[in-house]
Each structure stands twice: as structure tokens, then as C-alpha cells.
């Protein structure tokens, strides 16, 4: 029986339903634990996830890995209207990481007149999605790339470095500038060079560096 049905985006931004099995989720939790440890997240830390419910298949393994690490977690939608919640969390509590920041959340902070550095400046690890990365880096923050490449989650272990997917599970390639994903282990839904909605360069078959859309004005790192 399936764990659930999520979605991933392909290159024309269409959302494709994606059925995932319990064993796939279990494997992803194990890999997620390694990723979080690499980001320095351990017992007593806090992690704030900004995601959408349809992304739960991507995020749940990281959520559970956070809990297994003995760290605490909070959740907000990765949406414009949730910027107030993100700001409330980081004002009241100290977070080791905020993972999954999107351009929409930053649009919401802009609407509130909130400075990105006031909201996120005390957070050591900021995982920013394409489009948000550039805006945060432009204010002097040092985000990590955090990319949903189709069904795979890619997270950079250091600011400015490539974002890595789990190499045991996924193989990345490029098709006309778009990242493609191939599954390497049996899954309820198999993937064979599926073109994702991510434009990037690929590193060693399991890392990616997103193509940047720098703002027209302002500093670039």
C-alpha cells in the first residue's frame, strides 16, 4: 500500500501526481538524517520548514529525521500569506535552520515591510529555493540551495556549493538546460530521465547548481 500521493513539477510547470511507498519514505528518512547531521542539526536545535502540503512526500522524511535527531520542528506554508507566521516563529524562537524558503514567502515579507536580515539573520542555515536564493544572497545572507528537482530533494551542504540529491536513489542529467531525474532503486513510481522544472548545471550526476535569476539592481554576492 502507498504511503501517499504527492506531486512533482515538470518543465512546463505541470504538477504530476506521484505515488510513493512506505519503504521509499523509510529510505528517505535515513538519508534525511545524514543530510541534517551534515547541516549541523542535532538534539536541542530547532528547524522551521516552509513547504506546501502537496510537497509532503519531499518534506516528511526531513521532518521525521528532525524529530529522530532530537531536534524540534515547526511548519509554515511556503506562501506569501504565511510570511507573518515565519516572522513570528523566528522572532519568538531560535532556529538552527529554516528550510524551503520560496520567493512567495519573501514577497510576503516585502509586503509586511520586513527586512530579510531581521527575520532570518540569526538563523545559521537558510535553505532557499531557486529565486529566493538570489534575493537572500543579495542582502548579504548566505543561503544554501534547497531545490525540489522533480521527485528528488537537493540540499547544499554549504552556502554557494552544489545542492546534492541522494545518490543511492537518484541520478541527475541535463536535457536542453532542464535537470532530468532517473530513479536508481525500485519505486512505486519509476522515473527515467523525467524533465523537471529546474534549470541548472549538474555536478557528478547527483549535484546541481541552479541557473540564477539575479535581481536587476542591488548587490550580488
Amino acid at each position: 500500500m502507498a504511503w501517499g500521493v504527492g506531486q512533482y513539477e515538470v518543465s512546463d510547470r505541470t504538477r504530476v501526481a506521484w505515488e510513493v511507498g512506505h519503504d521509499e519514505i523509510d529510505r528517505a528518512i535515513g538519508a534525511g538524517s545524514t543530510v541534517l547531521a551534515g547541516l549541523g542539526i542535532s538534539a536541542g536545535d530547532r528547524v522551521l520548514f516552509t513547504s506546501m502540503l502537496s510537497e509532503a512526500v519531499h518534506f516528511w522524511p526531513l521532518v521525521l529525521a528532525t524529530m529522530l535527531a532530537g531536534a524540534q520542528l515547526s511548519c509554515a506554508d511556503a506562501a506569501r500569506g504565511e510570511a507573518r507566521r515565519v516572522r513570528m516563529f523566528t522572532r519568538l524562537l531560535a532556529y538552527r535552520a529554516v528550510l524551503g524558503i520560496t520567493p512567495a514567502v519573501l514577497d510576503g515579507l516585502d509586503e509586511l515591510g520586513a527586512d530579510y536580515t531581521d527575520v532570518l539573520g540569526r538563523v545559521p542555515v537558510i535553505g532557499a529555493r531557486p529565486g529566493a536564493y538570489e534575493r537572500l544572497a543579495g542582502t548579504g545572507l548566505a543561503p544554501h540551495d534547497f531545490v525540489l528537482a522533480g521527485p528528488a530533494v537537493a540540499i547544499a551542504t554549504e552556502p554557494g556549493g552544489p545542492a546534492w540529491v541522494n545518490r543511492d536513489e537518484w541520478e541527475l542529467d541535463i536535457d536542453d538546460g532542464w535537470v532530468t531525474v532517473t530513479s536508481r532503486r525500485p519505486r512505486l513510481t519509476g522515473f527515467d530521465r523525467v524533465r523537471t522544472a529546474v534549470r541548472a548545471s549538474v555536478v557528478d550526476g547527483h549535484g546541481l547548481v541552479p541557473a540564477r535569476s539575479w535581481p536587476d539592481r542591488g548587490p550580488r554576492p
Partner: protein
Amino acid sequence: MTGLSPADSPYYDAEYETMSRDRLADLQLELLTETVAFAYEHSALTRKTWDAAGITPADVRSLDDFTEKVPFLDKDALRRFRDERKDPYGGVLCRDQSELTAISSTSGTTGDPTLVPEVWGGGFVGRPAIMYRDFWGMGVRPGDHVALFLFTFRGPTYGFVQQLGAIPVLFDYGVDEIERLLRCSLQYRPTALYNFGGSMINATEEIAARAGIDPRDAFSSYHAVVFAGEPLGERARRLADAWGIELFEHSNVGDVTACFECPAHDGMHFWEDMAYVEGIDPLALDHRDAQPVSGDRVRCELVATALSNRVAPLVRFRSDDLVEIDRSPCVCGRTHARIWTIGRKGDEVVVQGASVLPVDVWAAIESVEACRLGLFQVVRPNRESDELRLRVGYQDTPEGRLGSLVEEVADAVRAAVGVEPVIELVANEELLRLGPPHKIPRVTAR
């Protein structure tokens, strides 16, 4: 975990859902006694509030003692404590911070969201209740698909679906996801949908037509479609009826528990082994002059006490919600009380002596075609006002026709409440941005 009863039982937990009122009262007193002792010992705000009232848990030996002697808490008290003591949990956390698994938050419709500390797998005493009993009662069974159309701020809500042995199909709460919901409904044939409110139902009509999907086909597998957050207008009910949808209303009960309609659709049950719920005179200043409203289906203010929460239990939490409560047996066989929500006490505006709540103008606004999503706000700088100011969302209207649209909306509202309104039109998108995603603040100071 699946049902505690056989799959053909309408009850997930027949013993608890249908227990006699006498046995329920005994169970509540037992749980209440434990709760107040626990909260007084561990919650700084509860202890401060009780000390100020000159009582201790030893003074509470009966349900009557509780209602006569125990002071109220409210959201302002939590926010005040939070700000004064620099305590992010508002003084209600009863565990060491290091024991927490998650820190979620309230919706924030009526102000800044407040933190909700959680201990997964160890934060509650008692038997599985909220969502489990409700969705089982709606007909969800192991192996089913359940469509979740939700936000994430409450945490991983899909867990209850998996615990029921069902498979969640996951969607974001928003108009952009409706077409995908319809397509996935045809593909996976879910038996329940949670949570699909009035604006989403209204928007579905147009989206389904554009996508060439008949909503009757898409929704034909559903036993239940749950809506929450806001009342459902006439238009949405008509559409749901036309599409063969059986709607189940759901609501929050004073930030302490939740309530859902059962298949009898005669009020929303809350599980009384989870919460002790009282109705009081909405005009009461404090617990000393709060007359209990004990009659069935009499308008009152809801006060709730958590009975099973062992992380941050709220004791006598005054909700500001106007409700009606009925403790008589339901035809579904469940003995737990039912509730009807009327509105928020703080939402009332008195215009030229006439009381107006958002619910009073809702149907009028959504009866206007360009305002069919029913998105609006009452602009209420003060409770009493010389004019009824409404900010109303619209769509599909060129700028040159906005003047006549204002008149059309004003006519409909005047006919509904007998007061001449002042209408400000804004695009629907402007109002939707004000979220939280499942509802917008219906009353605003400016």
C-alpha cells in the same frame, strides 16, 4: 492503527462514542481533576490566574466547584503573559522545553498566531478520538484514498489518514489546485475530502467547466466532503447539492479540540472525553458573574478545558466564540454533545442600533455574480458605528462597471440587514492574500 470496532460498525470506538451521559460525566470529572492538578503544578499562567482568584486544585471537588470557582483564561491573557515574561508559550507550557517534538501555531485569523507546543506520541492521555472517530463515522476505511486540501501550519495532518489505514492524496489549499484535485479524484477515487470550503466550491464551477470535467463525476467517489473555517453560503450549498456532495461541517472548539458533523448533520460533535465545554453568558465580565447557559441550543459564549492534553492544557479558556450547544442524544447514536457556531463575539458591529455579524451579510454578497466567492471584510474601527463599511472582493468586472457593481452589492446588503452599507470593492486576490489560507479575517479595524 485501524478502528477499535469492526469495519462495518459506524463507530470507530463504539464504547466511548456511545457511552451514557452519566458515565461520561464521571469520566470528565476524573480527567478534569487530573488536568487541573497538572496545569496548576506546571503552567505558570494557570497558577498565576488561580492564585489571583485565591483557589487551588483542592477546591475543585465537583463539576459545580469547577464552574463556580475557576477563573477564565483567554488569548489576550496568553499574549500578555508572553510579552511580559518573555515566555513564547504564554505561560501554558507544562513540560520542559527540551521535551517538545514540534512547535506549531494557531491560525492567526484574529491576531498574531500563538505557539502550540507538541510532544508527538506522548502529549495526550486517553483514546484516539479527534479525526479518527469523525472520519471513520463519515465512512473512511482502511485502503481508501483520502484527499487532503490543506495548509501545513498544523503539522503533518496526513498522519491520521495513514493511522486509519488509508492513503492521503495531498493538495495545497488554494484555487490553483482545484483542477488537479478534480483530475486526481477521477484517478484515485478518494472517499473523503478535507478541507474544501465555500470559496473553493464556488471557484470549482468555473474551473471544472474550463477543464471539461463534470464535477458530478469527479466527486462521485466521495462519501464526505468536509469544510471548515467559515460558514458555507447558499450558493456553495446549491452547487454541492447539484454535484451530489455530502458536506460535513467542521470547526475548532475554543483552541482546545475540534468538532465535526456526523452523518445525521444535526450539529457538530465534540468528544467530551477530550474537552470539557461550557456555555456562558457572553456579557459576563469574569467567572464570578458568568451565568452558565445550560439549556440546549441557546446562544452562549464557548468556554473549553482540555481534558487529555498533557503538554499545554488550557483550563477554562474563554473563546470569544458565540455558539449553541445541545447535549441531548443524537440520532446517530453518539452521546457526545453537538455544537453550532454563530460567529465571534468580537466580530459584532452595531450600526445605528442594529447588530450585524459577518454571517448576516454573507449570502447577500455572494448572491452578486461578480462577488460569488463571498470574499469580504467588515471594516469595524469600533463596535458601535454610524455606518456599515464593507470591503468586498470581486472578479470579472471591467473598471467602467465598478460603479454599478457597488450599487448592486449595496442593494443586496441593504435588503438583507436593513442598513445602508458603504461598499469598497477590491480584487479577490487582494483579500485572499490576507490568509491564513483557509479563511480571511472577516472583521478588520481599517
